């Protein structure tokens, strides 16, 4: 196996061009996921902008924008001359809530299956419902 060691960063980012999610948001989500999964904890340094840029061949502003967003969310803080560091952990959703949500989802999937929906239709329905929810939230926010 060939293994490239990427600097001294705790985590590495990847970008999915087909996801439709803007690159800076993909970075924000990957940091949040790393916090949820325990790859990152408060006090850890986020990958240096130059390292991310060199690994992904992306515009430095994209990384800066992602880190600013993380600062805005209170998850990270910049230390001048040093870099950006994890400030707070993410509240992990309690296991009980997860179980309950999962039960409801399985029930719903059963119903969808009985109604004759295939996997793609289910995914399309979920993404369009999420789209609707987000845009109605945006409408009420603005």
């Amino acid at each position, binding site marked *: 196996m060939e293994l490239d060691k990427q600097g001294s960063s705790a985590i590495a980012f990847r970008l999915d061009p087909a996801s439709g999610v803007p690159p800076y948001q993909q970075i924000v989500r990957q940091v949040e996921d790393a916090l949820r999964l325990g790859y990152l904890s408060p006090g850890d340094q986020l990958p240096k*902008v*130059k390292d991310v*840029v*060199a690994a992904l*061949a992306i*515009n*430095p*502003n994209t990384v800066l924008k992602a880190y600013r967003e993380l600062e805005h969310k209170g998850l990270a803080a910049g230390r001048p001359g040093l870099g950006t560091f994890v400030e707070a952990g993410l509240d992990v959703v309690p296991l009980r809530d997860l179980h309950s949500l999962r039960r409801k989802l399985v029930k719903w999937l059963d119903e969808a299956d009985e109604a004759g929906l295939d996997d793609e239709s289910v995914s399309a329905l979920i993404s369009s419902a999420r789209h609707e929810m987000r845009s109605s939230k945006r409408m009420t926010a603005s």
Partner: protein
Amino acid sequence: MTAVEAQAVGKRYGRTWALRDCTLAVPSGRVVALVGPNGAGKSTLLNMAVGLTTPTTGRLTVLDGTEPGSSTALDGIAFVAQDTPLYPNLSVADTLRLVANLSNRWDEANARQRLADLDIPLGRRVGKLSGGQHAQVALAVALARHPEFLILDEPVARLDPLARHDFMAVLMAAVADEGLSVLLSSHVVAELERVCDYLVVLSRGQVQVAGDVDELVATHRVLTGPAGELDAVASAFDVVHAHSAERQAIALVRITRPVPTPAGWRLDETNLEELVLSYLRAPRASALPGPLGERRAMSA
């Protein structure tokens, strides 16, 4: 602070105008993509910024009003021409020595370090390098002059995907490190989205679109709906370009204020590639910033 400013610039070769009435102000500190079909005038504009050719009409300046080709401009600007021309019979080390002798600013250690990081042997003849290594030598030479403004003409057009990625990675790391302005031309739009934060679209010798990439993407949407209702819906939007099949129509529209989605239609976000292609398909539509008057988008 502007990297390039053009006022009503035109360039005529014989009876053909390569550029006509080209007005543009590219802010400094940005990574600017100059895109457009072959023959749109991209190389002409770049050559003018470097001082290799002069406008027939109008005026073009670089680095906050400096005359292209003046010694200040030559010191501050590095140019990587199309197909990254280097002397094939010189070794990499001799190439460095040559540029060192031709430049006022030269950071030999910087060039050597960059080439060592890429495992490019200094003793090898340039003609024996792979396409990716060849391009990297040209980039290393340009960056070792510590330019304030780096101009590249189709830098990755002939490179394979891995070499393209590595080239852009080195370029972006230099931007992160030194904050230089970059202007690069390309006719491959897809790969620019990750790299560029400012877009200039040239079409038939004129500037068709200019602006911040995020802002451009945020102010355009894709409308999808029944073909029969296209005309009615289009009248309520700034339609850049629309295409219609028998039953379904798709239109790229420009949105400058919140608008409700028409009933029975979908309003989706767009991306840089879709946006550029839509404008190129509608040569009479344009999206231009400030001093050229209010932003306008006309249906073609």
